[in-house]
């Protein structure tokens, strides 16, 4: 009998009754073949690997992270609540010491969901990794967390949630935004004024294969992780870098994904994208599971895999080499100023329009961070969906100073009096108070 070197919990939630639309890539069938493959391999019979039920997240878990307008229940379906609950269950298994590591094989995904949520973007409604991380911090104290996003699309949602958080290192490796949705994620985006160098974007050229990804892991990701010394490493494990994926242009393989996770040694992995549901997902998920458990994965091969033809051309490797030379500097010598936001008094302000591609509308948003010398600073968001009602959100961060805390409450009061806003939400992480008005 096989025995896992690290005990692994797998939370499987295929959401067989939920889809964006019958022909959408993110649909019921997506994890069907993965489930078949894992069952047929007898994965759960390996000593140390166990399957667990997902939990169901609560609205407060969502409202700890997101400003949801009009409200969380209107944006997230029951499947989203269970998907987030699956990630929370993975975290609980690891935090309680029941398992060394955990892998949440859940859908729908979440890494395009931003701090403020008005609907679905990039097949995502709520950010399940962020919900999981903040659940951990609320329950187990403040942890330093590193999130490594290996999805082919830039994790713009996760980047936005943690833009101002110096205790969360977010590294996204993805197909260059000039060639793929969402069109963002460049090295110059390095974090907000209080978290410079805590967001690291690695835009890779189309055609990147195993050697390219492993070079990035060795030369960028691992040295930064060694310095950051996180309490937890999370892999945002999207699988659409695979050479068979229908909506991307990369050449990564199941062997590569397994090797990447062998090197990264994530405490928790959460499934994100990946739409080659027959040719890739069954093998990639098997590879990741085996790598996390420390079981030999050398026999995992997807059909049609040919390392010779998939190999990067020299110019691609050369380009990736250049990235590897320059990007670590963003972490080790962060820029003096954030590339986004203008200073207005003692506030750093960003005006943005955000397009929700899954639902086809635009949100206009003004986000302001109170620049404080004592703490991360108070966050204020004003938002409007198309010409809809105005929403107002205020967040008092973990470890806020008294001044920021009091300012937060007085701004909320002011907002209530002004009655300019239809919806108001307060996230107070310091006192664990979460409030909604006007719903």
């Amino acid at each position, binding site marked *: 009998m*096989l025995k896992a070197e690290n005990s692994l919990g797998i939370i499987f939630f295929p959401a067989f009754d939920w889809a964006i639309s019958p*022909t959408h890539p993110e*649909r019921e*069938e997506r994890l*069907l073949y993965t489930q078949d493959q894992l*069952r*047929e391999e007898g994965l759960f*019979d390996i000593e140390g690997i166990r399957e667990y039920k997902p939990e169901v997240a609560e609205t407060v878990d969502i409202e700890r992270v997101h400003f949801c307008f009009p409200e969380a229940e209107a944006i997230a379906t029951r499947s989203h609540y269970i998907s987030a609950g699956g990630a929370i269950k993975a975290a609980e298994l690891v935090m309680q010491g029941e398992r060394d590591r955990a892998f949440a094989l859940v859908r729908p995904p979440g890494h395009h969901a931003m701090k403020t949520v008005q609907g679905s973007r990039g097949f995502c409604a709520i950010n399940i990794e962020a919900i999981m991380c903040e659940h951990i911090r609320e329950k187990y104290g403040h942890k330093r967390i590193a999130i490594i996003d290996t999805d082919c699309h830039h994790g713009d949602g996760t980047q936005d949630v943690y833009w101002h958080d110096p205790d969360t290192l977010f590294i996204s490796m993805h197909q260059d935004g000039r060639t793929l949705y969402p069109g963002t994620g460049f090295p110059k985006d390095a974090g907000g004024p209080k978290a410079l160098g805590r967001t690291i974007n690695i835009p890779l050229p189309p055609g990147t294969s195993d050697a390219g990804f492993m070079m990035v892991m060795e030369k960028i990701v691992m040295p930064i992780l060694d310095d950051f010394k996180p309490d937890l490493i999370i892999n945002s494990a999207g699988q659409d870098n695979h050479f068979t994926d229908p909506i991307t242009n990369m050449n990564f393989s199941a062997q590569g994904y397994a090797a990447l996770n062998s090197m990264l040694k994530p405490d928790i992995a959460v499934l994100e994208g990946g739409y080659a549901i027959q040719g890739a997902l069954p093998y990639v998920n*098997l590879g990741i599971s085996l790598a996390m458990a420390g079981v030999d994965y050398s026999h*995992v091969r997807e059909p049609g895999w040919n390392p010779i033809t998939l190999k990067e051309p020299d110019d691609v490797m050369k380009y990736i080499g250049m990235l590897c030379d320059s990007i670590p500097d963003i972490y080790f010598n962060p820029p003096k100023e954030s590339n986004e936001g203008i200073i207005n008094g003692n506030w750093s302000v960003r005006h943005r329009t955000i397009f929700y591609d899954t639902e086809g509308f635009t949100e206009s948003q003004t986000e302001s961070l109170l620049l404080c010398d004592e703490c991360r600073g108070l966050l204020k968001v004003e938002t409007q969906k198309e010409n809809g009602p105005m929403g107002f959100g205020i967040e008092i961060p973990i470890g806020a100073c008294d001044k920021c805390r009091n300012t937060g409450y007085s701004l909320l009061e002011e907002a209530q009096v002004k009655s300019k806003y239809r919806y108001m939400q307060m996230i107070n992480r310091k006192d664990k108070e979460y409030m909604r008005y006007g719903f």
Partner: protein
Amino acid sequence: MLLLGIDVGGTHTDAVALGPDRIEAQVKVATNHDDLLSSIRNALGEIVRQTDPARIKQLNLSTTLSTNAIVEGKLEDVGVIVSAGPGLDPHSFMTCKDFHVIPGSLDHRGSETKQLNNLALEEAISSCRKSGVKVYAAVTKFSPRNPSHEKAIELAVGDNADFITLGHQITGRLNFPRRIATAFYNCAVWRIFNNFADAISGTLEEMGLGHIKVNILKADGGTMPLPLSRKVPVQSIFSGPAASVMGIIALCKITHDSIIYDIGGTTTDIAIFVGGTPLIEQEGINIGSYPTLVRALKVHSIGVGGDSAISILEGIVRVGPTRLGPSIAFGGKTPTLTDALIWKGSCDCGDIGKSKAGFAVFASKMDIDPEDLADKAIENAINKIHDSTRELVEEINQQPVYTIHELLENRRIVPRKIYMMGGPAKAMKMDIFRKFRLSTEVPENYDVANAIGAALTRTTTEIELFADTERGVMFIPSLGYRENVPRNYKLENAEKDAMNHLLAHLGEMSVAADGANALITSSSSFNMMNGSTTVGRNIRVKCQIKPGVVRTYS
């Protein structure tokens, strides 16, 4: 007309003859492990003496033959020929020395991604022939989706085999390592089981019972007709605990989440009911060193029973897990849990005086007050049972749960009632009640509930239907059935087909097909896409004859 049930247990062989409204005869004889047939013959002889043989219609038999053969390693050499393709290294699942991996592979939809290598196959077979192997198991990865590679192996083996097991015929459920182990065991016990089946038929003829129908009990609480069991003897393993669970169903009206204890001589079997239905092992049962695909009721055994020896180590009184022979009350030497119960006056069996005297001698030797010793021994046994039960319920609540009805999502099991059976059940009832504070019931005839359960269980079977409308095929692996279906084949057609084949299969086994107990346990249909066009549907239907009893005595 009478229904007979015989349960060959570790310590006793129990037999009952059930009339339409009462138990007409019941017998307990000692099990002779070296000659199970003689135990069965003795029990049958007693029953026939007490009843009119002409009225006997059916015999349901639960036997430990296959289980013992596996546990004691009395297995015939098997030639195991597998083909795996990518994934885990198949050599990790090597069950025996004649184990051969042939290049070739199928994917999760049953498409051939690599041809079976005929040259390697020929070499494997000739190597098995050289070792003198006469039974073969052919198992390929994803064979429930496409059995062609297993059939090719069968063809190649041909006359070299007295018997061959093909993986997909065991079940349509997926799990390659378990399929290997199950096929291997099925071959390894095939000969010993068939010799036994011949002997049983002969014995019945001798006793003038040649006219009765014989069924063999399975681990899922159902039976299979003897002729069918000859092909799938592996299905008869661990049927003892299942017989007990079915007995409780026949004797009690269970509606709540409940705990069932079958307290035997050496072990206590714990089973959990959800809303009146026993839980089933999700994948299959573990036996010997391997997990298998044999469907079974979820029963957890712990080493506490009436004959568990009492020991004192560093002042702590312990019961079990060893059995050092019978209780003092029945002529043994070491005091047991039963002797402790006799001392406390909870139990009245065997030679009471001898038991109490022996118990007191042991206590004084250990320098402990016998009253104290009895209390502590019983407390230790009850605690063991209590803790194991808690762990079991906790574990079940952590995982996706299946009952013989269906998958239960997000349902927490909260036991409200306890049912107890087996020899010491009545004596321990009050102690269990005090510990759990849950309503505790010991049914009448608790000591032969297992044989009653055996007598009353129904013939069960389960099949999986799998259809892929893009390829235009519909396929029922365990029946080896395959047909072409049109592109517009839908879930409702599949459900109807599955039910028809299930009932027809029962007909073939000459079992009166009872549509009322046939049910679909899961069915799903997924649109398969290519780009953004629907190219077909992937349909899966599972249905079964639900395990149950033909009548109840509650």
